[in-house]
């Protein structure tokens, strides 16, 4: 208690003008945020469906005061927010995907130290926090399962490490196979009933588009950057042409072309799935930007590094692989993560391909007469979810920089 008083005195009330400033700022904050507090917390409706909101609003109107937020729109539409119009009976498939990914993460955290363990801890904590929120007990059970899926393989890591040789290679292969497995599980095929990608939606679609876009665009971007520096004229000219054309076109046009124009050019029997087309569009678009970032990194490597590698007898490719690329890619982590963050948010442009991601599901909920007038609640929630994901990405990128920067300067 005394410590708090001391802190207050030293930081907020040290002189008469600081005291004045403190009082003014508190008054300003009160004016600015009391309305928000009344709306978001005091008068807010937290449960009871659309009817409860209507009642509260009518009551407030009758008494002539402002009404509060209708937060109940979020849990009532949670399934839409998370998975869009995905058939309810098949929702377990998405859970399985989440579980497999969680278990893979847990295993990887056991095998690789450092960053992956951070991810696991962060995700585990997030899942635990979700448990506290007002979800149904079955939903809580699902979420508790995520925590287990993350933590149990972590405990098994010694087994994995000692018994199976080449466990890292197996896990690495597992990660490569994961996107294919996930797309198959969600989209169906074979024994699983097919779910058209027009029914995929919500956060699931946002994450899927972003993750596949990131995973596919990164290697493509690196190749383009190397291609741009190649001594083979055809490779170089192709890379430059590609990068400059794609960078000169707005993303929305690329998606539009992929979803509407492409089918006109391709022969009729060759139909590419709508979501797949969007993924390809995001990948091709982002790759051009990644390529330019990486090129900047390649140019930052000093001549001496390359000469030292050459003097040791390393071939051009070994030099690129072991000396140039690792340093170049590390130098451009911030720029690339920035690109990935904007890709994550840009996935909301898939509405031009008639797909409903998190943001557009929000808009479609607002179009429902039952939830008329809940724009602020829905948009705040959607913005909050975007922020959580992008902040996590930014945080991980900073951690990655520290870990990879070991002993540097």
């Amino acid at each position, binding site marked *: 208690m005394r410590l708090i008083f001391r802190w207050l005195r030293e930081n907020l009330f040290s002189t008469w003008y600081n005291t004045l400033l403190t009082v003014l700022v508190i008054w300003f904050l009160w004016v600015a945020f009391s309305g928000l507090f009344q709306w978001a917390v005091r008068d807010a409706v937290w449960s009871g469906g659309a009817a409860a909101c209507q009642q509260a609003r009518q009551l407030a109107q009758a008494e002539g005061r402002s009404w509060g937020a209708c937060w109940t729109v979020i849990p009532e539409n949670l399934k839409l927010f998370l998975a869009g119009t995905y058939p309810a009976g098949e929702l377990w498939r998405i859970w399985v995907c989440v579980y497999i990914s969680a278990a893979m993460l847990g295993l990887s955290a056991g095998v690789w130290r450092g960053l992956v363990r951070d991810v696991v801890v962060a995700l585990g904590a997030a899942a635990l926090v979700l448990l506290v929120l007002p979800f149904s007990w079955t939903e809580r059970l699902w979420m508790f399962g995520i925590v287990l899926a993350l933590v149990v393989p972590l405990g098994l890591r010694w087994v994995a490490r000692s018994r199976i040789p080449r466990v890292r290679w197996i896990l690495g292969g597992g990660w490569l196979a994961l996107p294919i497995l996930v797309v198959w599980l969600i989209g169906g095929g074979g024994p699983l009933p097919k779910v058209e990608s027009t029914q995929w939606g919500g956060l699931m679609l946002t994450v899927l588009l972003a993750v596949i876009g990131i995973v596919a665009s990164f290697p493509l971007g690196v190749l383009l950057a190397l291609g741009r520096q190649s001594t083979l004229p055809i490779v170089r000219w192709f890379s430059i042409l590609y990068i400059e054309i794609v960078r000169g076109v707005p993303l929305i046009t690329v998606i539009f072309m992929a979803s509407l124009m492409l089918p006109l050019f391709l022969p009729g029997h060759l139909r590419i799935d709508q979501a797949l087309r969007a993924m390809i569009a995001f990948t091709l678009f982002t790759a051009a930007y990644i390529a330019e970032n990486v090129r900047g990194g390649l140019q930052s490597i*000093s001549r*001496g*590094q390359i*000469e*030292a*590698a*050459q*003097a*040791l*007898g*390393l*071939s051009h490719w*070994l030099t690129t692989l*072991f*000396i140039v690329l*690792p*340093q170049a890619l*590390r130098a451009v982590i911030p720029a690339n993560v920035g690109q990935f963050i904007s890709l994550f948010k840009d996935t909301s442009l898939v509405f031009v391909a008639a797909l409903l991601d998190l943001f557009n599901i929000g808009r479609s909920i607002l179009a429902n007469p039952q939830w008329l007038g809940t724009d602020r609640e829905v948009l705040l929630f959607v913005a909050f979810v975007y922020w959580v994901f992008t902040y996590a990405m930014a945080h991980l990128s900073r951690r990655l920089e520290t870990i*990879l920067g*070991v*002993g*540097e*300067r």
Partner: protein
Amino acid sequence: MSEEIIICRDVHKWFGDFHVLRGVTTTVRKGEVVVICGPSGSGKSTFIRTLNRLEEHQRGQIIIDGIELTHDIKNIEAIRREIGMVFQSFNLFPHLTVLQNVTLAPIWVRKMKRSEAEDLAMQLLARVGIAEQAHKYPAQLSGGQQQRVAIARALAMQPKIMLFDEPTSALDPEMIKEVLDVMRELARSGMTMIVITHEMGFAREVADRIIFFDQGRIVEENTPDEFFKNPQHERTKLFLSQILHH
């Protein structure tokens, strides 16, 4: 004495219009230690960089251990495997540990087993006196230690020739000795060495021969004793008076 391992005949090199090397002819025998000195811009650095083709010569002939340096990339890589090089600015790989710096080329170029390469690396690091730093990163070491790692890295390829391009010029005075000691030991072990340096004490003590460069030409070459006592050319005398009595 023994066989000639480096033969240069009338080597010329231009940077654009600038004629850097104007007909360098010399030979180096196996096990010989040659010190090259001369004013800056005299082409001495460019000359030793042509020996492992970090710079391309445009006229004349360079024959290393019986193989002539041509455009053939296979020849160049084969020759680079036999020539170790130590740079003024160390050029260690900052993203790799000391041990990884030393083992990289033996594993990927010599196709040595990882365990063998690591044993060899640890021996070499012990030889240059920094075995205990093997798992640190270059930035965590002092300049003298970094340069010794660079020497160990070059030695790990078990080269027949070692080139040193002003290895102590970027070092604080108190670190110069530790690097020169390593080079002395290396010279005594019978390594063929070409060293560009301004450390005249080292040259007098270790070199079998001193070559003086000026304006892209070899002005004078002689044994250290004769070189310091009886310099033949005015240019050499001027250089020596400047470098010895500054």
